[in-house]
């Protein structure tokens, strides 16, 4: 694993967290006691937080994807990360500090969730593989030049170019709250479930190539 700085809360290691410093001023007051309390009272600026979170959310989801597989668990973890970021996240620090903080929180929360999943014998990748994979995801996210908005926008335009049937398949896989939606679709269309998953695999490759093509042309 990459050698990381220590998080203030858990002792877990994570990159970029060292960039976030608690000495970052939250208040201009000269009285130390009043300075800290004034900073507490001054709630995080929703606009600032929104901007920071908007930049971090996709990375947090991608990072959590390397630990966990089911969507509801990931959504739960994102919620916890967001709340921690709201309460304790660096507000006035330079760009990457907030992302580093949220990924550090995500790691701690995800590891806790993974321990629960292992207890329930839900099959996951081995811990060493998860660790190296999550490091790879985090490194890629931190090195990603395109903003989440740009990435989603590029993907959205690729999605818009799809025909109705493949788009419906993607919606069933990623948007449906019914876990048996794909099985029902297979029964309704007379196809095997394996055929639908194969189709999904091809669609993802297609969309990945489409997004890569857009980013290449933009560069």
């Amino acid at each position, binding site marked *: 694993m990459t050698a990381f700085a220590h998080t203030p809360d858990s002792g877990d290691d994570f990159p970029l967290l060292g960039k976030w410093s608690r000495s970052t001023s939250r208040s201009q007051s000269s009285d130390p006691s009043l300075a800290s309390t004034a900073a507490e009272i001054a709630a995080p600026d929703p606009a600032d937080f929104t901007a920071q979170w908007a930049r971090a959310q996709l990375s947090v989801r991608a990072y959590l994807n390397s630990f966990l597989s089911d969507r509801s668990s990931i959504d739960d973890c994102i*919620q916890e990360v967001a709340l921690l970021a709201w309460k304790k996240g660096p507000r006035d620090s330079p760009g990457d500090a907030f992302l580093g903080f949220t990924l550090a929180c995500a790691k701690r929360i995800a590891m806790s969730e993974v321990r629960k999943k292992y207890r329930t014998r839900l099959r996951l990748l081995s811990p060493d593989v998860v660790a190296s994979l999550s490091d790879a995801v985090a490194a890629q996210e931190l090195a990603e030049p395109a903003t989440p908005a740009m990435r989603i926008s590029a993907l959205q335009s690729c*999605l818009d170019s799809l025909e109705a049937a493949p788009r419906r398949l993607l919606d069933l896989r990623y948007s449906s709250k019914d876990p048996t939606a794909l099985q029902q679709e297979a029964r309704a269309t007379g196809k095997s479930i394996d055929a639908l998953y194969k189709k999904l*695999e091809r669609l993802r490759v297609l969309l990945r190539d489409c997004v890569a093509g857009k980013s290449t042309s933009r560069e």
Partner: protein
Amino acid sequence: MTSGPGDFLPDPELEQLVSRFLDHTITAEETAVLEQRLRDQPDARDYCARALRFDATLQEALLPQPLQWEETRRVVFDPKRKDGGPAWSIQRQQTVRYGNPGNSLSGSPEGPLGLPGPPVRRRWLWPAILVVSLAAACAGSFFYYRSLENVYALRNGDFEAMDLSRSISGIGHSILYWQDNFSTSGCELCEIGRVSGGKIFAPSGRNIVRLQDRAFLNQLILNKRGTPLKALPGLRVILTGQAYSQGDVPHSLRGGLRFVASGYPDMIQYEAATDSATIPSGGWHPLRMEFQVPADLLRPPSDLSSKNIAAPSIDLSGKELTLSLDCRSPGDSICLDDLKIEVLPPGK
């Protein structure tokens, strides 16, 4: 999401493994292969990481997740703290909602902030259900236990608790629950159909009890919790059942609610209430006796094993009551079956 010019091109096997991993359709064997490749091949690991990131992007593009929470604060400003300076104190409470309308987490239809449908995490839900269930079970047990307190019933009132089918004679002298404190040889448990050669049958089941003249039955009256019935002024006990006698003259059955002060060596009993019934001759007839406990319960002894015993009068209030049935049928016998009691507390 960018992919650099020197990106690794996955082979079809890796593509399929990663795709099946993303769709949760990967088998245990495939997982082992994927794990080995992710350990051994950094390029494969980077490819898998890119696939995971793209999957997250797809998720965000197809089902963007709104995030919202409510926050309340109480801020207290104390202008003069102990050390002389001012002080702030802050209390904060937050409620978090996250997700799309109706999506997985909790299904809250609408959030108070006006955004549609962000479900609430309900970590308290299962503990709360558990606590409520336990409380309901405790309350149910309590009320059930209390309800048994006032339910009195005769034990082995139909005399079917013993099986006489293997008895050669069809007659037994041990009558379960009916010989509390005392027993008498003139009392028999009979499989009456066999014993009478088919002339008489029990109103229900096979067994009845046959009482010779001067014979008796005794049963301590218990509720469903096993607590004896206590004598109280105004208490009523109604005995019903079936009775049979033969001969030309009616026979008499005497009953009483008694307190057995001593059984051995000296028998001392006190009677709280008494009643008698005349049994018409020929065939089974309904039997009904009613015992009313009077207001004055200071009683002299009613039954003594010897006239020389000097037993004092006592107040029977709160004393345990035994139902006694005595046969007064000179030269003949009385048969009883299906005996039941109803206990009516004072005032009912």
